């Protein structure tokens, strides 16, 4: 069992969870964001289920020094709430509302073989690189 194999398996489980939850369908996500009109609250249950499954294990595991594969446990460093967090989350939210795709479902959506998904992912990669190379 190595890191690559584990990553592949984790991605597969994550992707299966995404399709079962319905969140790979942009129309469904837009139904959740459509708060004033035919609101579809399903996404609350997706996020709630995921948080409930993850949180107890996280607090059991977070103080271990190494993971099961012997890697150092990597936790995000505590950061100040700053402008980047607020502006970044706002921009992300607008983009999410424009199309109904966030990064996970956007990648899983490659499974439907619609070329428009590739255009979205290339644009998303450019957005990431703008931050990595210009704003950082």
């Amino acid at each position, binding site marked *: 069992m190595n890191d690559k*194999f584990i990553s592949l398996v984790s991605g597969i489980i994550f992707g299966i969870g995404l399709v079962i939850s319905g969140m790979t369908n942009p129309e469904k996500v837009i139904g959740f964001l459509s708060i004033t009109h035919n609101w579809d609250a399903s996404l609350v249950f997706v996020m709630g289920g995921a948080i409930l499954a993850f949180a107890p294990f996280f607090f059991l595991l977070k103080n271990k020094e190494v993971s*099961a594969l012997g890697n150092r446990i990597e936790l995000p460093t505590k950061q100040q709430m700053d402008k980047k967090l607020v502006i970044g*989350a706002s921009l992300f939210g*607008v983009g999410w509302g424009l199309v109904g795709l966030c990064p996970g479902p956007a990648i899983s959506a490659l499974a439907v073989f619609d070329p428009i998904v590739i255009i979205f992912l290339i644009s998303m990669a450019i957005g990431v690189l703008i931050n990595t190379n210009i704003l950082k």
Partner: protein
Amino acid sequence: MHNFTPISALIGGIIIGLSVVFYFYTTGRLAGISGIFENAITKSSNRLSNVYFLLGLVIGPLIYYNIILPSEDIAFTITHSYGLIISGGLLVGLGTRLSKGCTSGHGICGIGRLSLNSMLATVIFVAAGMLTVTILQQYGIHL
């Protein structure tokens, strides 16, 4: 709420959460997809592992629709406006990395860790998304 599907949403959410647990337990890393995506296209640390995770995200739905439930049709409806797709993609890529997290990194891992930053980020991106959809609906762009 005629499209409300709480049971499948909850089951899917729990599976996503268990994937995050499994990944954290084995690799010691948190499964924030925008971070994995950034690492896959930029840095050399764990680069190949990140590519494998993303590959899994595509294989998972293929397994589901071809092996687990081959009778089910893939539900996928998306705008085909290039303007919306390109601006949406740019904003999602830029915004998630500027705020260091997306729906998984902030919404699931961050809130699960009880991070106040992630809770704030999640409230902001959900609110911004709702505002955007509401405005687009006024112009007849989203139904």
